C-alpha cells in the first residue's frame, strides 16, 4: 500500500476575477522509503498541491480530490483537530526560506521543543534531551549551547538544519521538502541534500522533494513528476526521465540547463515549445 495516495487533486483560489485553477487534476502516490521529486517552474502548482496535502492553504482556496489518503487514513474526511494530529507528526514539511519560516522571537530550542510537547507530550527534561539529540543528528556543533540561540544568530544553512530538526522531531513517515536548498550556496546545498538523504535512508521515510533545479533532482530522486501549469506532464523514474524524456516540456526543461548548452544560445522553454508545435503540424 502506498504511503500517500492522491487522485485527481484540484485546487482553485477565489480571486476578484473569478476562480483561478492552480492545480488541475493531479494524481500522485509515494511508497515508503521512496524519494519522489516534483519539478516545475513557479506557478506550476507544485507547492500548492503539497500545501493542499498538508492542509495549510488559506481559506480562499478550495481543495477537491477523488482520494487523498495517508497510510490508510482518508485525510479529506478528518476534522481540523484530527488532521493537525497527523500533520507535523507523521507528515512534516520543510520550507524554502529557513530564515523566514522560523519564528524570530523564540529560541531554536523552544521551537524544537514545542513540537515535542504538542505531538509527543514529553516532559521538560525529555524534551531537552531529545532536542539536543536532534541538533546533533542534523550536524549542528555544540548543540546544548545552540538551543538558546535565536534564528538571527545562525547562518542560513544552520537555520535550514534547525528546520529539518523540527520536521524530523516526531520521526515522520513522510517528509515534504519544498525547495529546501534554493536560498543556499552550492556548498551548503550539498551538505543539506546529503543530510536529507542520510536521514531518509536511516529513518526509512518517504521524501517528496519539490524543486525547480534539475541538478537536485538528478542527485536525489528515485522517481520524478514534472508539472506544468497545474497539470502533470510526465512521470518516470529518474534515469528514464533524463535519458529519454517523453514530453516536450521535460525535453525543453533539460535543454535549458546551462551545462547542456549547444553553441552560443540557450534554448528557452518557449522556443522549444514553438519548435515542437511546428514539427507536430508538419507531421
Amino acid at each position, binding site marked *: 500500500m502506498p504511503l500517500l495516495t492522491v487522485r485527481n487533486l484540484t485546487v482553485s483560489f477565489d480571486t476578484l476575477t473569478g476562480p483561478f485553477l492552480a492545480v488541475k487534476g493531479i494524481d500522485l502516490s509515494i511508497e515508503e522509503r521512496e524519494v519522489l521529486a516534483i519539478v516545475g*517552474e*513557479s506557478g506550476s502548482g507544485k507547492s500548492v498541491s503539497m500545501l493542499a496535502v498538508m492542509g495549510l492553504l488559506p481559506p480562499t482556496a478550495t481543495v477537491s480530490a477523488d482520494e487523498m489518503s495517508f497510510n490508510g487514513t482518508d485525510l479529506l474526511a478528518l476534522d481540523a483537530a484530527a488532521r493537525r494530529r497527523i500533520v507535523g507528526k507523521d507528515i512534516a514539511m520543510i520550507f524554502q526560506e529557513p530564515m523566514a519560516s522560523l519564528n524570530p522571537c523564540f529560541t531554536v530550542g523552544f521551537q524544537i521543543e514545542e513540537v515535542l510537547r504538542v505531538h509527543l507530550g514529553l516532559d521538560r527534561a525529555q524534551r531537552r534531551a531529545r532536542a539536543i539529540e536532534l541538533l546533533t543528528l542534523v550536524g549542528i556543533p555544540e548543540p546544548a549551547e545552540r538551543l538558546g540561540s535565536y534564528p538571527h544568530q545562525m547562518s*542560513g544553512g544552520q537555520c535550514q538544519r534547525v528546520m529539518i530538526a523540527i520536521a524530523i522531531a516526531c520521526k515522520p513517515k513522510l517528509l515534504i521538502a519544498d525547495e529546501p536548498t534554493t536560498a543556499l*550556496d*552550492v*556548498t*551548503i*546545498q*550539498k551538505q543539506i*541534500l546529503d543530510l536529507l538523504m542520510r536521514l531518509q*535512508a536511516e529513518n526509512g521515510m518517504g521524501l517528496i522533494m519539490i524543486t*525547480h*533545479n*534539475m*541538478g*537536485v*533532482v*538528478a*542527485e536525489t530522486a528515485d522517481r520524478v513528476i514534472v508539472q506544468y501549469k497545474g497539470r502533470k506532464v510526465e512521470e518516470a523514474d*529518474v*534515469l528514464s526521465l*533524463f*535519458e529519454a524524456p517523453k514530453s516536450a516540456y521535460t525535453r*525543453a*526543461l*533539460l535543454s*535549458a*540547463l*546551462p*551545462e*547542456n*548548452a549547444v553553441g*552560443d*544560445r*540557450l*534554448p*528557452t*522553454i*518557449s522556443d522549444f515549445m514553438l519548435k515542437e508545435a511546428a514539427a507536430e503540424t508538419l507531421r
Partner: protein
Amino acid sequence: MTGPVLEGRDIKRDYHVPGGLFGKARTVHAVKGVSFKVDKGKTLAIVGESGCGKSTLARIITLIDAATAGELLIDGNKVDIARDGLTPELRRKVQIVFQNPYGSLNPRQKIGDVLGEPLLINTAIPAAERRDLAMQMLKKVGLEEKHYNRYPHMFSGGQRQRIAIARALMLRPSLLVLDEPVSALDLSVQAQVLNLLADLQDEFELTYVFISHDLSVVRYIADEVMVMYFGEAVEYGPRDTVFGNPQHAYTKTLLAATPRADVESIRARIARKRAA
C-alpha cells in the same frame, strides 16, 4: 581604444565595526587585496559563497563604496571616489543589476519613470526624448510599449529582471556589474535572461562583471573566472583552465558540490544506493 576597460590592483576593503555596550570595536577585512583585469566585450565571473566579499567587490567596482587601499582603473584612468567624488561621466560608464528584482524596483514608480530616471539625474536630455529612449530600451529587452505605464507588481520575476537590465543600460554604460542576476529566477526564465545578456553584450560591446555562486551558469557565460574565498582571490584565470584544472582546494570543493545532471552520474548514484 586599447587596454582593459576595468582593472583592479590589490584592492582592499575594511569595515570598522564600532564597539558598543556588548562588544569591542573590530575591523572586518572584507576584501584582502584582489587584482583583476577585464578587456572590452569580455565577461569576468566572480564566484564564491556568501560572505566571501564578492558583493563588496561589486560595490567597489560600481563606485558605490570606495576601496580602503589599492587602485581601480576604468578605461585606463585611475578612479578614487573617496577623494574626487563621483562624476556623472563615471556613473554613465558603470552600472549595476542587482540580485533581487522584487527589491530593486520602486513599487510606486511606473516602468517608464524607472527607465527615465537615470537620464533625468545624469543628463540634460529633455522629457520627450527621455520617453523615446525609454521606449526603445523597453523593446530592446523584449518588453512592449504597453508596459511603459505599468507598475513593477504587474510583472513576473523574469520581466522585472529585464526592466532592471534596461534601467542599467539607459546611460549606455561600457561596464555592467551583474550581482547574481539569475539566482532568483526559474530555469526557463534564467535561460531567457542569459540569452538577453549575451545579445546585449554583442550589440553594445558591453563588458560584464558577473557575480554568481552557480557554477553551471558561470561556465556558460564567463570568459575569465575569479574564485573568492574569505576575501581573497584563490583562483583566477581563463574559464577552461579554472574548470578543467582547478588548483585551489576550495575551487575543487565548489566544483564537487555542484549537482550533476548527466545520465552517467545518475546511474552511478543509483548503483551506490542499491549497494548500500
